[in-house]
């Protein structure tokens, strides 16, 4: 069976800066990593191909430097890598990104399951996986925390819900998004690192994918970022004075007044 894992390269820090002119993330000088949730998706793809014997192909859409994310995926066991990169894709929102990924996934043709991380840590929307499934007309299961059984044409998974988990059966091919409960990603192996070093990923541009110009990039995006800003933090403080008894009374009165108790 063949597994496809969609990953995203994200800034390796929570200290993101935003360019006030373009409203986009400042990526210069910030180390890039594989989106942490996608690391679980890669691990699951590798485990499933070991279990059900087959291949695990990892694909990412991004600028040329996203190749490093593909190398890292190969160093932990992915077999093949596809980089989807074209200036035409720049500025895509989740809808346009899902369109490009769906086109790429259908171009791969021979796959049984597409695995994604539950969301990215930069955009944090969690929308791309379900949108892609929709565009591919494939069933989708989100928040998968365990693959109970898999065989050609069939998968049974556990998905996390607020107060427990659901067991979902689903025909294949399908798309799933996984949570961090699903596995513990392995460390790279030396053989994997060597394979990654000499890796030449397949590169697909829009020449290869032929997504209509009005479906990708800014033009194909259903949303537009109007403004990105850090929330203003306001802090007010008041000193409560008096004897301890008086202080307690004043504090309780204050808490009641602000409806905290």
């Amino acid at each position, binding site marked *: 069976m063949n597994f496809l894992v969609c990953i995203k390269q994200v800034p390796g820090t929570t200290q993101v800066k935003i360019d006030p002119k373009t409203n986009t993330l400042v990526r210069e000088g910030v180390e890039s990593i594989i989106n942490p949730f996608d690391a679980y998706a890669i691990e699951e793809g590798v485990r499933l191909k070991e279990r059900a014997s087959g291949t695990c192909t990892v694909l990412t859409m991004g600028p040329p430097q996203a190749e490093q994310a593909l190398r890292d995926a190969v160093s932990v066991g992915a077999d093949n890598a596809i980089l989807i990169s074209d200036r035409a894709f720049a500025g895509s929102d989740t809808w346009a990104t899902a369109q490009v990924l769906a086109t790429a996934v259908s171009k791969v043709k021979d796959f049984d399951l597409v695995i994604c991380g539950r969301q990215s840590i930069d955009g944090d929307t969690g929308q791309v996986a379900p949108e892609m499934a929709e565009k591919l007309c494939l069933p989708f299961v989100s928040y998968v925390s365990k693959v109970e059984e898999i065989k050609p044409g069939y998968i049974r998974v556990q998905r996390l819900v607020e107060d427990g988990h659901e067991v979902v059966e689903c025909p294949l091919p399908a798309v799933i998004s996984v949570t961090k409960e699903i596995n513990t990603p*392995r*460390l*790279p*192996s*030396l*053989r*994997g*690192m*060597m394979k990654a*070093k000499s890796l030449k990923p397949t590169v697909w541009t829009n020449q290869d994918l032929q997504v209509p110009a009005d479906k990708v990039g800014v033009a194909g995006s259903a949303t537009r970022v109007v403004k990105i800003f850090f929330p203003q933090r306001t802090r007010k403080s008041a000193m409560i004075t008096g004897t301890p008894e008086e202080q307690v009374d004043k504090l309780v009165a204050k808490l009641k007044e602000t409806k905290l108790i």
Partner: protein
Amino acid sequence: MNYFFNEQQEMVRSLARRIAEEKVLPRRAELDESEEFPWDIIREMAAADLFRVFIPEKYDGLGGGTLDLCLVVEELSRACSGVAICYAATALGAIPIIEHGTEAQKQKYLPDIAAGKRLTGFALTESGAGSDAAAIRTQAVKDVDGYSITGTKQFITNGGEAEIYTVIAITDRAKGIRGASAFIVEKGAEGFTFGKKEKKMGIRASATRELIFKNCRVPPENLLGREGFGFIITMKTLDRSRPGVAAQALGIAQGALEAAVDYSSQRHQFGHPISAIQAVQHILANMATDVEAARSLLYAACHTIDSGSKDFTEESAMAKVFASDVAMRVTTDAAQVFGGAGYMRDYPIEKMMRDAKITQIYEGANQVLRNAIALDLLKRKGRRQ
């Protein structure tokens, strides 16, 4: 200092460091306390291909040299030399097979060692034969279908946990040390059992046991090299493995140095960090200089070995003697920098001191190795005259 590693060495080093920091460090104190063999970490190292580093490519290894091996041992020892020695002792046990094994022996054992499926051990020492290796009493008697080994080996690293052992036994007592031979003996062989697990001062995550042979059956194809070659195989194996002990010592010293530097800037006395006190700074400077000198000597010895040199007894002994003495001195000084805290088991320094001591003792006590260095020196002087 730039040591000009090649790409593979950089890779090996960074991965070993990652394993040491992510997998070994969090369990260091617990393993020292429980003296539990770190099988889970061994499996992680195997999955990361670390056991492939020192095995030739033909047998599923990565064909790395002594330097590659030493980089792994150094990085692991920087976190915990008890864990590191389980790995290094497997390299020690594999060396006789790599260097002196037949094609069939290599095919049979090396791929499993490379995959980390089976660990190895090297069995020379006996209760009456330590530095005086020629005094071994374990005997291998040849009969119609192989050999029958009887005797007891002592203080064998990885004993009981490893599955493949190189065992040195006497096949012809009349010939003295030229009557010793080397055998591959597998765990589970008839007549082969293990004695008690030793309780050690340091490197407590590692296992050290007696190997007990009572008419242990060994097939003829398990003889390494030829009969009578046991002592030569031993000496050549230890020449090749000793840099590993130096790397272990170096890693311990590096770990102690880093811990001492960190502590000296956190610990306040007289209103400032103790790192502001020149007396402390000089201790740290001496520690750092010693560590770097040991590293330079070790890497130079490794390059000598890896460049295909035939005789490197002296280089390998010098690296081991120097690095192990440095490890003892640096860990002792680190404990001094830590003061009372360094004496407490809540801090890692006392463990490092305990771990350092063994590096001056095993795989050739430093005094014995100084004899070897002096012998080479004087031989050269003799040749000049």
